């Protein structure tokens, strides 16, 4: 038997409700809180119970949605470039501090445009470089936003 996408989602929520409820027990209470009607745990407890109850209802009630199985939902999609773009975003986050805003943005845009299928270097560079430089100019020169220079440039004593 394969789960439908709605049931899969409900199952995830059911597990989440249990985990959230357990974690809610770890919230520390202030002295005297046992006499209070409302503490830091009240809302999380209520949410854990409600989520558990509603997800259980979705799991046991007859299917009302499309009934499409969850495996079919993930098939036939353009996964490789999507995953690559996600990796690029993570790398962009890692590169910002050492390389600085300008260089890491240019590299991210070049890599992103290339990943999505553009192979004409002139187009890639004409999109990536002016966009990054233009945005940097607006931020730093017009809006006076401080952007820390890349550590690598500081280490090389280039300062930008």
């Amino acid at each position, binding site marked *: 038997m394969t789960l439908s996408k709605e049931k899969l*989602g409900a199952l995830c*929520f059911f597990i989440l409700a249990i985990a959230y409820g357990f974690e809610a027990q770890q*919230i520390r209470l202030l002295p005297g809180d046992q006499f209070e009607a409302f503490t830091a745990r009240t809302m999380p407890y209520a*949410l854990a119970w409600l989520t558990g109850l509603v997800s259980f209802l979705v799991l046991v009630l007859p299917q009302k949605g499309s009934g499409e199985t969850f495996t079919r939902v993930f098939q036939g999609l353009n996964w490789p*470039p999507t995953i690559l773009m996600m990796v690029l975003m993570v790398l*962009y986050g890692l590169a910002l501090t050492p390389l600085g805003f300008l260089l890491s943005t240019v590299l991210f845009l070049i890599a*992103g445009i290339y990943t999505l299928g553009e192979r004409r270097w002139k187009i890639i560079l004409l*999109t990536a470089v002016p966009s990054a430089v233009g945005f940097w100019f607006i931020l730093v020169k017009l809006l006076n936003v401080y952007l820390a220079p890349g550590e690598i440039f500081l280490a090389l004593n280039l300062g930008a």
Partner: protein
Amino acid sequence: MLDGILQGLSTAVSPVNLLMVFVGCFAGTFIGMLPGLGPISAIALMIPITYGFDPSTGMILMAGVYYGAIFGGSTSSILINAPGVAGTVATSFDGYPLAKQGHAGKALAIAAYSSFSGGTIAAIFLLIAAPALASVSLSFQSADYFALMVLGLTAVSAFAGKGKFLIAVLMTLLGLMLSTIGIDETAGLQRFTFGSLDLMDGISFLLLAMATFALSEALMVILKPAARSKEAEEATRGNLGSMKVSKEEVKEIAPVIARSSVLGFFIGVLPGAGATIASFLAYGMERNFASAKEKLKFGKGSLRGLAAPETANNAACSGSFVPLLTLGIPGSGTTAVMLGALISYGVQPGPRLFVENPAVFWSVIISMYIGNIILLVLNLPLIPYIARLLALPKQLLTPLILFFSLVGVYLVSNNTFDIHIMVFVAVIAIFFRLIDFPLAPMLLGFILGGMMEENLRRALNINDGSISFLWERPITAAILAITVIILLAPLTKNIMDIRKQRALAANDGES
């Protein structure tokens, strides 16, 4: 009130704010036209830009983006049958057949006139309804606010679509759960931080809005690429036909516009219902009003079928500002993002806004008139050129949208950890999108979560821990009664459906 209106007018017509309406309408039209990106993304992308602005200016820009995005969605609905926004799906029913018959120009012109009329008429209603509701809501107490928030969240789930009620409730609960992460404001205790310093302040609203909408919508465009149709190629060349609308046609659609404006506005005011529901209801209403002969034209290029949803969706946009500005409770995902933005500007929307910040309150309302005029002036002559934007290659646009989303959040926090959290949240959002779990209720739950907890805590403390406040105050009791009716409506319908099926099965068995 007159003082407030004049103050709002002077703020709204200042050169900077006029420029913002113009920029907002243009940017909104452009983003709304891109299939896959809706008004929530459009507004979320604007938030980091508006951080340094005066609150009125920021709100004016976002309001311009909102109706610009709805109009942009209509353009892609009519030209290529690819609605950029859910609120313009009904527009494609008759707009696209008209475009196929060679009347794309006329369809776009009618869409522009209808949007303008709907938006303007609704803005007049807003001018009357908002201050009235604001003065009533000054008497609201914590218990009433708590009940209103429960009503808002329930309504969002109830309007989520057939068979989706419980799923939308789950998503709302997820938003509420996310809102509990960080330090509890009253007790100062850590909740769900797992010892991480980065989670002490909780999850940033901007991060969540950007990751779940802008970022994941852009990634979905890569994941599910849409094939470019012949119509898209044609539209991008600017061959739209005549844009003239005859006198007879104006006569035909004028009553439709009047009816749909009123319907759209009131649907927009309801918490949870927004432009999408308003447009579908207006379309259905006009089909019911039409003569048997006219009814046959619906779905094949009826002018009434095009004018009704276009008017209603813009009227609903104006209507949805009523609960936002007067109660501080957003009625839709889009206004939820605006609420988050207002809070980040240091402005607390609600009944006091009308008294304490009349410039923000009135300038937003006045800017709606200006926005509608600008949309008409901007879009009619520019439609053939704007349509060419549809030709911009996705491989160039998508990385730029991703970059703007990431940098928007990074610039506010200056913390690269946020970029990684965004990617993580976007992955989860994509999972939800693939399994058809709606994300707007989650965002609404997240934004209202803190306020809801605070009001419940206060109401309980005032009542010595008793929950009698739920039925002791007539306003609270009435709001909760409406909530119960909304909750029970889908359940009753389910039971009736099951009975019908059983009766049918029994009949089949007998025959």
